[in-house]
Each structure stands twice: as structure tokens, then as C-alpha cells.
């Protein structure tokens, strides 16, 4: 795995120097991250990179994963959806399964690091057994701005036992009695999903996947999920088609284990059936290099979601210097300033209009892509994320201060 110095050419020496400066004040500090899964999902992906880098900076960073049975994960899935605002049937048994599972975990876990850093609602209630000797942070990766009241009322008393919490966007947060930090997630520019690829590597992937390159590619990378609106993407492409010469590529995670996903994929295939300029390409979830190559080969990237979390796929596309047309939902407006670092849309008509504009004005499209890449470099790379976490750790020793002199 790359070490911190490998980021020097990407983020500059001053950024690294800042990290080393801050780390001096945290040397040897124990920080225990706890989440609910070691593999898969954005949290595990970030922790896999974050932990070794924090250790390289001199912090004693560790990572534990809670264990739970089927009933626990079924309950937390419902909690997750309800906290997102979806109507869910949550029963007393769900709460019971949750509390029992966390009690079992507490019996086997030592939560005695100087900073205990809990990720997401699944392990949130571990805080119930905290002692006052250490600091506790709750990192919420989801949008809890409009939760189902009953589930939020269950979690809120736990959340307010923490010293601080962290949200990814101002619009995702709640009014709480504890300090709330705003720390956006990040992408790793050296991962397979984002690292630079040679032209040869890109061509090899496209050849292997049989993606023709005779026309400019317009790509949406996402699961086959209604909230990503793949049918809306097709409609926008077909509206724009009389005015552009391009090929649409819908690429995303395999839907084998997701009945609704399989149904959406079938509908997408049916809608695309008569149009030779639309390619539908389901890929396994581990296809990081393939996604990277496809994004790099594309002329325009779409993210026409109806609802979105932070939407880091937008950051991944912008990092490749690509012009991105994306819906103004979730965390996407934090990543794109309309007409400066990308295009924000609100409708299928908007997507079609901007598709025409960008494909017919490559100079403007390139400028958007360049600005977008710089915006990501400054705000959404792993090094900024490391810095913010270290600042948060330091702030815990100065509660209420707005100027901290180290």
C-alpha cells in the first residue's frame, strides 16, 4: 500500500508538511475505529487506507469490527433506511436484537483507546458503556436530516453521549447538544479506482470489455437502482441524440443478489434494446480498474441520481478531469459548482440540454473538467480527510474554543 510520501506529487509538499506538523501533537495517541464491516462499502474502503496512514504519522490507530447475527443486520438495515427517511416497519424485536448484539460485543471489546471513533448507527450504542476517561466521536456517513421520528428518538440519546459527531454535509445533520464537525469523505488518488492509467492500460480494458471507441462515450457509473435513474439517463440521451454523435454506456455493479436491481437491469436492457448506441454493462463490484479505465475513456460522465448520499462517484469522475453532469442532490452540490466545475441538473430535459452543450463545445467541457479536478485535489482527497480528522482529535482537548494555539 502506498505510503504518505507517494502523495507528494499529487497534493504538494506543503500539504504533507502540514500533516506532519499536526501529527507531532498526536504522537502515540491511541485512536480506535469501530464499524460494522471489514470489507465492502465506502467506510471500510476509507478505513483500509486511513489506518496505515495514521499509523505512519505516529498515531496508534486501530480498527475493530462489531459482530452480529442475521436479526441484528436485518434490524440495522431497517434503521438505516428509516434514518434516511424511508417508511419502515421497525418492531420492538429489532430494537431488542440491536441492544442485545451490542451488549454481546461490549462483553468482548476493550474500548479504552484515548479516542474511540464509532462509524455509523450500527455500533452507535457502544457509547452507553463509556467511561469519562476517554473521548468518543460518532461519525455519521448517512443523511439523517429527515429521519423517521421513532428510530431517531431511539438513537438520539446515544448520539448525545458522544463528545462530538461528524457529518459529511451541512444538510445531512440534525440539531444536537454536542459539537458537530463537517468533514466530507474523500477518494484515494492512488487506489485502483482512481490512479493514473496509461493509454495502453485504458485501451486494454476497453478491448477486453468490447467497448467500441468509434464515438465519444457518455457514461453513467452506478448500481442498477431506481434512485440512480438509469431510465432517465436513457431518455435524456435519446432526446439529445439527434444533435450529437455519441454512445451511452451504463455501467455498474452486478445485480445478481439484489432482486430489485435485477428487475431494474432488465428494464434498462429492454429500453436500450433497439438502440445500438446504448451499451449496458453490469460488472462485478470489484471492477475498480475497469471503472477507472471507462471513466478515463469517456467524454462526459453523468450522475443523474434522484437521491444520493454524498455521491463520491462524482468526485472520482471529476478527479479524472472529466466534465460531469450530475443531479443537484445529496452531497453532489458540494462537489460541483454549477458551470464552473461541472453541471448541476434537476431534470431529464436538463441532462439532455447539457449533454448537447458539452459534446458540441469540447473546449468548455475541458475547462469544466480541469476546474473539477482542482476542486477535488483541494477538497476531496484522502490527505485533506486525514488533516480534518487530526484537527478534530486536537479540538477534543479544547472544547468550545474557536482559536486553538498549538
Amino acid at each position, binding site marked *: 500500500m502506498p505510503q504518505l510520501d507517494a502523495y507528494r506529487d499529487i497534493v504538494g509538499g*506543503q500539504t504533507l*508538511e*502540514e500533516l506532519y*506538523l*499536526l501529527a507531532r501533537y498526536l504522537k502515540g495517541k491511541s485512536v480506535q475505529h469501530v464499524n460494522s464491516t471489514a470489507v465492502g462499502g465506502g467506510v471500510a474502503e476509507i478505513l483500509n487506507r486511513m489506518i496505515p496512514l495514521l499509523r505512519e504519522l505516529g498515531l496508534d490507530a486501530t480498527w475493530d469490527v462489531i459482530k452480529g447475527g442475521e436479526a441484528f443486520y436485518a434490524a440495522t438495515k431497517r434503521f438505516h433506511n428509516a434514518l434516511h427517511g424511508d417508511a419502515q416497519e421497525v418492531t420492538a424485536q429489532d430494537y431488542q436484537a440491536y441492544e442485545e448484539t451490542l451488549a454481546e460485543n461490549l462483553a468482548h471489546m476493550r474500548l479504552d483507546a484515548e479516542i474511540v471513533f464509532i462509524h455509523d448507527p450500527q455500533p452507535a450504542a457502544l457509547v452507553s458503556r463509556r467511561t469519562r476517561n476517554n473521548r468518543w466521536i460518532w461519525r455519521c456517513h448517512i443523511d439523517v436530516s429527515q429521519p423517521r421520528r421513532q428510530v431517531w428518538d431511539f438513537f438520539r440519546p446515544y448520539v448525545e453521549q458522544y463528545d462530538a459527531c461528524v*457529518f459529511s454535509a*451541512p*444538510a445531512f*445533520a*440534525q*440539531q*444536537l447538544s454536542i*459539537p*458537530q*464537525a*463537517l*468533514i466530507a469523505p474523500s477518494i484515494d488518488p492512488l487506489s485502483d479506482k482512481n490512479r493514473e492509467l496509461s493509454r495502453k492500460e485504458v485501451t486494454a480494458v476497453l478491448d477486453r470489455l468490447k467497448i467500441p471507441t468509434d464515438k465519444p462515450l457518455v457514461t453513467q457509473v452506478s448500481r442498477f437502482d431506481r434512485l440512480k435513474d438509469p431510465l432517465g439517463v436513457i431518455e435524456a440521451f435519446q432526446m439529445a441524440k439527434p444533435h450529437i454523435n455519441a454512445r451511452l454506456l451504463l455501467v455498474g455493479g452486478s445485480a445478481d443478489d439484489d432482486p430489485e436491481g435485477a428487475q431494474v437491469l432488465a428494464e434498462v436492457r429492454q429500453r436500450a434494446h433497439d438502440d445500438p448506441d446504448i451499451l449496458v454493462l453490469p460488472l462485478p463490484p470489484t471492477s475498480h480498474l475497469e471503472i477507472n479505465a471507462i471513466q478515463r475513456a469517456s467524454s462526459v460522465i453523468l450522475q443523474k441520481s434522484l437521491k444520493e448520499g454524498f455521491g463520491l462517484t462524482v468526485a472520482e469522475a471529476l478527479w479524472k478531469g472529466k466534465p460531469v453532469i450530475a443531479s443537484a442532490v445529496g452531497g453532489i452540490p458540494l462537489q460541483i*459548482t454549477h458551470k*464552473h466545475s461541472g453541471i448541476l441538473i434537476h431534470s431529464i430535459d436538463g441532462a439532455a440540454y447539457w449533454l448537447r452543450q458539452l459534446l458540441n463545445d469540447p473546449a468548455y467541457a475541458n475547462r469544466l473538467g480541469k*476546474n473539477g479536478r*482542482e476542486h477535488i485535489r*483541494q477538497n476531496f482527497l484522502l490527505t485533506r480527510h486525514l*488533516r*480534518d480528522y487530526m*484537527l*478534530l482529535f*486536537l*479540538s477534543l482537548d479544547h472544547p468550545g*474554543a*474557536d*482559536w*486553538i*494555539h*498549538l
Partner: protein
Amino acid sequence: MSAVMPRAREPFRFFTRCCLTMMTGVKARTLRELTDYLKTAPEAVVYQHTDRFLRQHQYLVPEPSNDFAYWVTHMLQDEPLGEQLAAIDTIRFHSLHELRRQLVTVMESHLNGKKELSQAPAGKEFHFLSAVRFSVPTRYQAYDLVQFGRCLQQVSIASLYLHLFEARLRTPLGINDFSHWLETELREKVLAEQVAGLDLYTHTMESLRAKVTGLIETRLHELSHAAT
């Protein structure tokens, strides 16, 4: 040359600055709500929404000088007020208190006489944020002008910003750290005034670095001639 070089009793210690953004949980949907909260918000909130360091000086992206102007223009669709707020020269103020008063005055005079207020669409509310600022000592320090000039070329632009811009919000008010040290430690009154006289608003941080470095080199040249 070192024989005539004034040497400070206290070195200039270069610090750098970092910011952690915090959320207040308060949001505004109308100009009235925006004004009312701004009147009593902690100064860290005023700072957060008027600090243009990152965007304006580092990345050279032209945009309004404060978040209030952007929100009023784009979410309330009130371009005349947005223009007035954008025109407020945030760097001219020597305290966040004064800056807040000016922002509130402009907003209130616009509110006077308005019967109906436009409301931001759902999801486009103004979220009040605040800043926790950190000043962090770096390894750079200087006892004389030669060392000072060398350090200036090495330090980060966040350090330059802290000493040139933010220092003006601390006592002694309105004076940047470089000028203060040059005058009080090295007795370089003229040089201190030249640095203080630079128009911070029309330069990027890198061009400010070059300007200050140029002034120091000129002064060193004078000192070396005086010594021979």
C-alpha cells in the same frame, strides 16, 4: 554584511493555520431569518462565512466575497442585495464585530419596507457553519532580515495568510505580524510601512510572497552598500 545586520532579541516564529469547519445546526430560509441569526451568531460563524482565503487567493476562482452574497443571489434570487453584499470589502475591517455590523446594516436596510420575503426552496437553506482555527508553529524562525527572507520563500501560503491577513484581526489591530516584528525587533520602520502598505486585496498569496521578498532584498542591498 552580518556586522551591520540588526538582530532581533526575539525571533520571528512562523506559524501556519488550519481550520476545522463545525456546524451550528441553525439554518435560514428567508432574509429575515438570515439577518436575525447573524446579529447574535458567534464571531466564529462570521469568520467562517467571510473567509475567502482558500477559494479566492489559493485557487483564483472569482466568486462573491462572502457566502451570504452567494446565497442571497442564487437561492433567494435577490440580485441587487447579493451585489451589495458581495461588494463589502471584508479585508477592510479590523474586527469581525465591525464586519458583522456592516453585513447586518446592508441586510436590514434592504429588509426595510419589504412586505413579502422570498423563501429559499426546500434543501437550499442557508446553513450556518463556524470555524475552529488552529495556529501551529512551523520549524521556520528568523533573527535577522537574511533569515527572514529565506523563511518567507519556504513557508506555506497558509502561513503567509495567517501573518499578513489574520494578524490584522488581532492586537495590535490592523497591523500585520511581519510589519510589527520588523518595526519592534529590527527597528526597520520604513520596511515595516512598505509591507503594511501592500494592497492585500489585489494580489494572490504567491504574488504577495514575491512582493515582500522583493522589499526585503532591496533593503538588504541598501544595508550591504551602507556597510562598504
